[in-house]
């Protein structure tokens, strides 16, 4: 997949907001910043992280391993990870 990196960031932010437990920030329109931590700041638990990953796998047709996720703690890291993952996927030769 190639394309508009800014648009990709917007899609990822929308997904983060959608899977974010509403009891913490609700639909309050709080601005999501790249430095926000998924678990500590947004109330994600491990299942919510797994659900988000499942969604990205479906949306972008990629496979994400548990070990790859260990380094992703903030929104910014998630955006960077997804962009990198898509780039890797795009560089793979197609059969």
């Amino acid at each position, binding site marked *: 997949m190639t394309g508009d990196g800014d648009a990709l960031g917007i899609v990822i932010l929308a997904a983060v907001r*959608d899977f974010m437990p*509403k009891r913490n920030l609700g639909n309050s329109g709080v601005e999501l910043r790249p430095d926000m931590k998924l678990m500590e700041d947004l109330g994600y638990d491990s*299942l*919510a992280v797994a*659900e988000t990953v499942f969604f990205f796998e479906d949306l972008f047709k990629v*496979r994400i391993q548990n070990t790859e996720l260990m380094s992703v703690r903030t929104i910014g890291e998630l955006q960077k990870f997804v962009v990198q993952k898509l780039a890797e996927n795009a560089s793979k030769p197609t059969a």
Partner: protein
Amino acid sequence: MSSFPGGRQVLVTGLGFITPIGNDRATVSASLRAGKHGLAPVEFLGNPQIPVKVAGTVKDFSVDSTSCRDWTWPARYDLPRETLRGMAPHGVYAFCALQQALADAGLKPGDVANDDETGLFCASAGSAMLMHNNLALMHAVRGERGNPMGVVSSIAGTLNFNLAAHFHITGAVCGFVSACASASHAIGYACDEIRLGRLKRVLVVGAEELNAETLLPFAAMRALSQQSDPTRASRPFDAGRDGFVGAGGSVVLVLEEASFAKSRGASVYAEVAGWGQAADGYSVAMSHPTGAGLQRAIGRALKDAEVGAKDIDYINAHGTSTPVGDRAEAIALKAVFNAAGARPNISSTKGLTGHPLSLAGAMEAAFCVLAMKEGFTPGNPHLVTPDEACADLLLPRETLATGPATVLNNSSGFGGSNVCHVFKHWPSP
């Protein structure tokens, strides 16, 4: 008063309804009084050849999709995303019924959270629809990935898992799986836990979804009515009955120990005076021909409640409208009641609702105590020609304008599980 040590009594103090005949107490009461059914035309899998034409549908909800993102429910219920994500379609019904029951009991969600005295006993068969969807994905990708919420949203127990987490229930949480006796088992064991002094309050939840995956397997058993006329499809005890009509929904009962309920000034529907169970030991799916297990279950319920057959003035029958099941129940009722010189009014409210499987016992228990509280006795509006096995049974067509004082509620499930409750009128203070 039960014979349990401690003399604790169990009261019904709150009800919540998401049913084919109404999604609130007032509408359910009006439907029962008017004999108004909740059946509607259905078509499953886009196939008009399927001989299942009507069902007890749940109105004002849309939970047909396999994605919870598509589901809708009445806006008055506050169902957050982090709770919804692990739910089955019938979990949405149950969530709404539980919020309704708590409000009806004069309780706030915080009153039952983390109190170590409130239990949650649930009954459902899980979500065959979501299970099918999850397993289809698993096979499609040869087991390499799956929905992280697949297990908790689909297996039997999905109600307990989700509701316990959301409402922060810490007293006790468990589920019951005895097919169409499941919710009746939940009420019975909830009653015992309170009488034993282990819990002060139990939220009893029954729920089922209505879709192809839940209902059509019963068509394969030749257990479903093929009628397209809603007034003829579910006809418990009628000579022309041809099977049951499926239904979905959820009902919640709040049960509380009497002194505990009194101390907070709770309004009371009725007392759960006792219960009994016994099994047929006969067939995986069919009732014993003379309702042998049901007869024993009734006897045990009467004994536990310390009442005689003549004390019962209304029986809410299991009466699913199947030829074999209704006949067995009629024989059992005659053996217990007519033989003792008793002739209580008998009706099966499944004529109005259809048969909601695991939910049936809770739905009908709630109908019973609602009728006791409000002063009416549900009838059998679709009954035209009673089966000859019902001779000498009192099966009123119309709703009676007087309420029963002592009620028996019957449920029977696959494998010959029979469960009966006795409810007694509880005088207002």
